[in-house]
Every structure is written in C-alpha cells, then in structure tokens.
C-alpha cells in the first residue's frame, strides 16, 4: 500500500512519515533508496520501520503530525483513532472486511465460480476486500459448490513462492498461520461442511502453508460467517430470494466490498444499490481500478483511497472572502 499512500500525499504537496508493517519491512527499505535518486528534497519522504506498539503508537499520538492514514485490522484502527484524537488528526482508515459475493440462479455459473475463487483464494486469502462470504441461490447451490471446489483444487497450487507453478504461497507469519487454522477448527466445531481443504498442508510443514478451504452449509450466526479470517477460507451459504440475500449480505459489521453475479441488468443495479458496502463488483471480484474510489463503510473504514477521491484525504479547503467595497 505504499504506492496508494505516497502517490496522493506527495502529489498534493504533503510530507510523509511512512511506517511499514513489522512482518514485511524489506521491500519498502529498497523503495526508500529510490526516493533520493528520484530527486525528492530531504525530509519530504521518511520511511521508518518500527514495532506497531512503539512506532505506530508514537505516530498516531504525535501532536505535530497533522494526518494519519492507516491500513490494517479494524481492531488496531480503533486504537489508532483513539490515539489520533489527541490533536484531532485528519484520519483515513482502510480496515477489515467480510465481503459477500451473491450468486443468483440466472448467473453465468462457470464465471461466478471462477471469480469466486479469485475473490477469496488470491494472495493466500490475505485481502481486505476478499469476498469470503459466498451466498448462492438454492436452486444452483450444489452445482456451484461442485464447480467452485473443482476450480479451487485445480488452480490453487500451494508451494514455494519462487516456483512458477505456485498459486498460493505460505501465510505471512506464524501468528496468521495459527489464526487461520484456529478458524478452520472453529468452522468444523460449529458444524459447517468441509468441501475441500480443512487444515495445514501436510507436505509443506516447513513453512506456514494452509490448504485452500471451502466450508458449505454455513449459518449466519457462525463465527466463520461473521468474523474476518484473512486466509484462504470461504464460507458458502444458500439463500432463497433476493430479499433474503440482501438481508444476509448486510448482516455484518463490515461493509468494504461486495459482488453480485446475475445476467439481469435490473437485478444487478437494484442489488448494488441495496448492499451496504463501499464497493460493488457486478459479475467480477477483486478487479478494482486505481481510477475509482476504494474504501468501505461501517467498520471497514473511513474515507477513500484511489481515484480523484484519493486526493481529498490529503487536501484541506480554505475559503477566502474578498470584500470588494462593502463599508460598515
């Protein structure tokens, strides 16, 4: 996300202090070597690795920082927001999601299954906008599940990131690995049906590798339906009517992204208007664009990145009034 943050901040004339995540400090250090080469004046871009509890907190609390932009978990964002209140910082947050993907009976089922796979299995399932709740109309439920399972098994080759055949690498850290495995066990305990996957990859125990997992027959009150897992784990649920689908889709504290699969233009736009979400994909998933606003509502964040809207996060408006002759 460095590019999403540096781009608008620098284009609008701000100066920045950017802190990478403690799990992934390396690529940004290399990027930092290019800042001076590009010709930015000293102090315009500062890149500091640090522990969240120390450097992250210091940034959020600092009385001489005017704005904070954070991408991460909803839980951490709440701490950031509290800390930022010290000097009423301008704040934008891009946080968690449990985005729904709705498949109606008139959808192109093959395409719905393929996009649903991308929607949750890309990037090891570690995507804020992952369409991890898949709601399928009852009449096509088993047919969809079967095709979704087949595509997952064929496409999600788990392995070494430097192997060209690999689709899914390891989870980023031991903590995330344990977290995802915990949720898989929770899903089993809650009574969801394991269609494929269901645990650690037995042949790749040297790293944090997890089998892409699909749960079916998930209920709305299950934790794997409501809570963000942030791993290659999909929760598939049947619905009967459009009204029920919308109610189920909106039954979430999150509202980051969503997807609707239907061949009816009327239904597509009607459902897009009814979903509580910052973004809607009609007949796709994850194919956003840098030209369009990106961000969520409810507990998925505040403000927008990307597009012209992304500039607003880094600009403030000053009104100047000119008296052309009014005397008092």
């Amino acid at each position: 996300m460095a590019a999403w943050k540096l781009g608008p901040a620098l284009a609008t004339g701000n100066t920045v202090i950017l802190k990478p995540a403690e799990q992934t400090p390396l690529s940004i250090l290399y990027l930092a070597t290019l800042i001076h080469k590009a010709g930015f004046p000293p102090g315009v871009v500062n890149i500091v690795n640090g522990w969240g509890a120390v450097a992250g907190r210091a940034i959020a609390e600092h009385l001489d920082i005017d704005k904070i932009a954070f991408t991460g978990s909803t839980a951490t964002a709440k701490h950031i927001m509290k800390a930022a209140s010290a000097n009423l910082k301008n704040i934008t947050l891009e946080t968690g999601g449990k985005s729904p993907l709705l498949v109606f009976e008139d959808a192109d089922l093959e395409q719905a299954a393929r996009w649903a796979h991308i929607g949750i299995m890309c990037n090891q399932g570690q995507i804020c906008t992952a369409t991890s709740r898949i709601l399928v109309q009852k009449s096509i439920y088993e047919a969809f599940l079967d095709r979704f399972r087949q595509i997952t098994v064929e496409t999600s080759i788990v392995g070494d990131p430097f192997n060209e055949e690999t689709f899914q690498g390891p989870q980023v850290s031991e903590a995330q690995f344990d977290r995802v495995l915990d949720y898989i066990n929770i899903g089993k305990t809650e009574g969801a049906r394991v269609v494929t996957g269901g645990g650690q990859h037995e042949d790749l125990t040297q790293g944090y590798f997890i089998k892409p997992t699909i749960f079916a027959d998930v209920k709305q009150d299950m934790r794997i339906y409501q809570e963000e897992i942030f791993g290659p784990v999909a929760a598939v649920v049947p619905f009967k009517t459009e009204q029920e689908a919308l109610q189920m889709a909106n039954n979430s504290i999150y509202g980051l992204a969503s997807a609707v699969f239907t061949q009816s233009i009327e239904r597509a736009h009607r459902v897009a208007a009814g979903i509580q979400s910052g973004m809607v994909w009609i007949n796709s998933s994850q194919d956003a664009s840098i030209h369009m606003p990106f961000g969520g509502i409810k507990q998925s964040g505040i403000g927008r990145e990307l597009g012209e809207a992304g500039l607003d996060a880094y600009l403030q408006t000053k009104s100047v009034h000119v008296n052309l002759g009014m005397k008092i």
Partner: protein
Amino acid sequence: MRSGPSFSSQVMERACIAPVRVIHFYKYVVILIIYCETSQRSKEVLWSLNFCRLNHTGMALTIQLTAPNGLKISLPTGLFINNKFVSGSGKPIASINPSNRQVICAVQSASVEDIDHAVEVARHAFYDSSWRCLSSSDRGALLFKLADLINEEKVSLATLEAWNNGKPYTSALEEDLSEVIATIRYYAGWADKFQGQTMTGLGDGLKFAYTLREPVGVCGQIIPWNYPLCKCFCVQVFT
C-alpha cells in the same frame, strides 16, 4: 573503537560459532577479527575481511542478501530520514521467510525519539522552499521519475516482496509491481490538475470568494503486510 554485544550476538547467530568477541576499527570495518575461546588457555584467531558500514549499536546499515531465486540484493537496514539511512534506537526487527520460518535478516526499528526526529524533519521539509515552492508540475515530474526508477528495480522489489511476504514471485512482479508503477504515475498526473473554486456575484456584487486546496501537512502513513508495496487487482492471475 567499540565492541557491541548486539553485533556479537548477530555474528554468533549468523556464523554459528560461540562465544565471540569483535573489535571494530573506525566506523568502517576493514578487518573483522573473530577469535574463538575454546578454553581459558587457548584461543583460535580467524581473520575475515568484511566491508560494511556499522552504526553505533554495531548493526550493519547495509547488508548483502542472496534471495531464493539467486538474486543478490544490497539492502539498507536503517531508518530513511532526511534522505539518509540512519540508525534506529528501537529493538531490531527480525524479518522471517514464511516459506521456511528462517530469519532473512534483521532491520532497525524506530523508537519514540526516532519518530520525534522524523516528524521534526518532515515539518521542516513541509515549509522549506525546496518543496513548498516547487511548482505542481515539477512535483508531478518527481513522481514520474520515481515510477520510472521503480520500473527499473521491479525485479529486486518483487523478489523482496515474495521472499518476505510469501506471495508468489510471479504475482509480485506482474501484478503488485505493475500496480505500484501505475498508481504513482496516475497521481503524478494529478499533481497539477486539482484546484479550488471561485464564487462571484455575492453580497450585492461587493464580495468575491474563492477556495484554496492546500496540503494537510505532515502525514503519518501506516501500511499493512498483505500488500506492502501496493494492492494488486488479482485479475491477471486468472487466465
């Protein structure tokens, strides 16, 4: 001339010998002397030539890495403040390869005091004429230049991304890095195209008003581990 237990322990870990005592000469270590004490009475002296820059805590500010794909990368480990890499006084961060749970290297981290320093620098830079008085088009030109440099270095950047994050290298190179370059270029284009508004015909014609759109100031940006450089839009994966 200093000896640093922290550097010693790192050498110990990397060289898998114990215990060691390291003596530094000047800021630039020309000769690294390591001697192993196998007993109280005997010592073995090993000589190793190692050119690296060390900071006051003994941690290398630049390290040489060989990635799993064979690529050799020279990587700074310090804090990038005021266009220089400086040491951090926080607890170092061990960067792990999630494919095999091994430590790739350690990097320096910022303490509260380091953040204070960075903020001071960023505040000064915000008001300095070198940035404040730069034309909007020239600001855009700097971003275009940055995008071009990222494009030239995309193999190294994608390698580090895949190595540290665990995402497939092909995705990092063809998707993430493509989006990084596109995003920087997109905003480079915006630099000289946003403006305020004017309002005329106010107050019986005796008032004119306009808005200025100004930068907010010093911005703290905290980025996540799932897409450190840039979020990619996964469509290219599906063919």
